[in-house]
């Protein structure tokens, strides 16, 4: 009985695997006309990331389809070692281009080395190599992303402008901004840069600030944002004048906690997820910063196509490369005045 069960289990699994993989032949394939189809081996550092999984990944597929290239996207489950293995597999399959979203920005040189040895062009996206000189190791590696600091600067400028325009936001009238900050993953380049530059905007504008509390959250999670905000509302009560969130997910939690207590404090996020646009429409959120995932994906595909066809990476596109071979897709401020343009 037990043996029969095991055999059946194994059979089901084999059938399932065959079933799942039948429509996804991988590696370089040739279509009926005999022209070679371009194959991109790509990853997303973590499918659990709202922005990468929900915005960038679908956009990559969409633009690849439109350009008639094949893209295989795998989940690195937030583990750099998994990504290393996946790159080996892509190389083994003989993909034409590697489009890699690093898990650990400090591990870029390993990936670049692998691509170099296999002589496959490499496009890193969204997470930039932090090692000095990594990008110079290989002539066929490029980066597509943003300038991390920009999101913080834009968020900060938005907050400063709104603060100046709304005298009553300074509830205790002491001229200082009493804020709480939901930070995100400690050590993450975006979390650190956004924290630094969003607050710096107030300093630059000559407005004194007082940090009531700041808590990191390795998962950037909505439930963490909710519980922390609920606690702060109890411990600081009316003293909180501003809620700064380094991503929209945590802002959603904070908004939920405020709604539950029937209070409303200005709150800002980053990412411009659809839910954030809806919160702005409902007057529950004051602003977010569009991390332009669609255009980052578009740039990845544009560069891949050019490189695969042996052209200059930015030929025929509107992108520009800076001195570290990077395309910087700009962030955009999303406010109650312009949110409808992003729907």
């Amino acid at each position, binding site marked *: 009985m037990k043996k029969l069960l095991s055999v059946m289990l194994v059979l089901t699994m084999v059938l399932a695997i065959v079933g799942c993989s039948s429509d996804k032949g991988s590696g370089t394939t040739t279509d009926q006309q005999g022209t070679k189809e371009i194959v991109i081996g790509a990853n997303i550092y973590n499918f*659990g990331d*709202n922005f990468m999984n929900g915005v960038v990944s*679908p956009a990559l597929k969409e633009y690849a389809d439109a350009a008639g290239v094949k893209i295989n996207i795998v989940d690195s489950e937030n583990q750099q070692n998994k990504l290393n293995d996946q790159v080996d597999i892509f190389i083994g399959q003989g993909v034409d281009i590697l489009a890699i979203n690093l898990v650990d920005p400090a591990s870029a040189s390993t990936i670049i080395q692998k691509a170099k040895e296999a002589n496959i062009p490499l496009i890193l996206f969204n997470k930039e190599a932090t090692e000095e000189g990594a990008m110079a190791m290989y002539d066929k590696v490029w980066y597509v992303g943003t300038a991390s600091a920009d999101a913080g600067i834009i968020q900060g400028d938005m907050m400063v402008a709104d603060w100046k325009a709304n005298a009553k936001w300074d509830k205790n009238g002491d001229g200082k901004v009493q804020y709480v900050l939901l930070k995100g993953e400690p050590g993450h380049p975006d979390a650190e840069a956004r924290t630094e530059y969003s607050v710096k905007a107030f300093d630059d504008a000559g407005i004194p600030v007082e940090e009531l*509390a700041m*808590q990191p959250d390795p998962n950037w999670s*909505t439930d963490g944002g909710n519980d922390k905000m609920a606690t702060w509302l109890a*411990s600081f009560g009316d003293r909180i004048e501003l809620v700064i969130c380094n991503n929209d997910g945590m802002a959603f939690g904070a908004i939920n906690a405020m709604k539950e207590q029937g209070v409303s404090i200005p709150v800002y996020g980053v990412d411009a997820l*659809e*839910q954030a646009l809806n919160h702005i429409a409902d007057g529950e959120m004051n602003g977010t910063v569009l991390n332009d995932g669609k255009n980052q994906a578009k740039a990845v595909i544009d560069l891949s196509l050019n490189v695969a066809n042996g052209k200059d990476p930015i030929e025929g596109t509107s992108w520009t490369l800076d001195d570290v071979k990077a395309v910087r897709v700009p962030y955009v401020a999303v406010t109650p005045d312009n949110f409808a343009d992003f729907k």
Partner: protein
Amino acid sequence: MNFTRNFSARINRFKKMNRTDWLNFLVNNAIYIVMALLIGIVILREPTFLSVRTLINVLSQSSVKLILAFGVGGIIILQGTDLSLGRSVGFAMVISASLSQADTYASRFYPELWLTGMPTFIKLLIPLLIAMAVCAIFSMINGYIVAIFKVHPFIVTLGMSVLLYGVLTLYYNSPEQGGQPIGGLSTEYSNFILGRIDSIGPLKFTGGFYIPYLVVYAAIVSIIVWVLWNKTVFGKNMFAVGGNPEAAAVSGVNVVGTFVLVYMMAGILYGLGGFLEAGRIGSANNSSGFNYELDAIAACVVGGISFSGGVGKVSGALAGVLLFTVMSYGMIFANISFEYQNIIKGFIIVFAVALDTRKYLKKT
């Protein structure tokens, strides 16, 4: 009467204690002493911690965790553990949220939801039942495999958590526009979960006090679980199988059946927990529920539900969950830095498990 007699008996026992007894008392209750110290420190740093608001927040933040702890608690009583709890709850959250969005919300998971226009009761019940059914099925599969193939639940549920994440992400990413956090939940759903009781009959609460619905739901679940564990054949079988599966089998208990039922009950509780959690948080995505198993399991163990099986009380799970919530709430309240929060939390878990093992060694 009974209580006073008990109490004076306890006082007498205290008076008769010698040094070793005191030491034993300290060690056996060390966890509560550490917690009390911690709360003391928080109050010293932030005296406003002692407030009605803290009480309400701690109770409502504990509610869902308690329901989940009851689920995994039953499995721990069977000498098991459940690493698929978090993903299971996440799946239930995504299912519940996707079926409970307001029909006026701009970006809906199902642009044309068949539940639209149904009576409120149905609109709440259907997502709840689907979430519970899905979690129950996956959990029952865990139970079957553990019982029939005698595989350690650690690896079975670990595998199941990976599998669940795959299925969950597939579902979450299925809409046309790709996977987006599922927010904009309907007011009926939000009110059902975030609502509060301001008065009982003519008695109106004062001083900012109210009872969140969530606390009422957790109380009802606690009573049901207490009856199941203590007053039914199912409960007796669970403790018998957990204490000694061979002996239970010899005395005619259906071991496989007990396993499957306990795991099924866990799944139902995860489904309910996920349904409530999505409403509490206000949105859900495919990383929702991640790592929830750690808090739930830790709370059970701290509350005296032993990993060696057959031992555990409803009140223990309640104490464990409350202590953990008070601790994390208190540490954020007192603005203790993230690093120290983790050190303290980790220390208490390790300490609790060590004590748990010590009690077990004494038993044999």
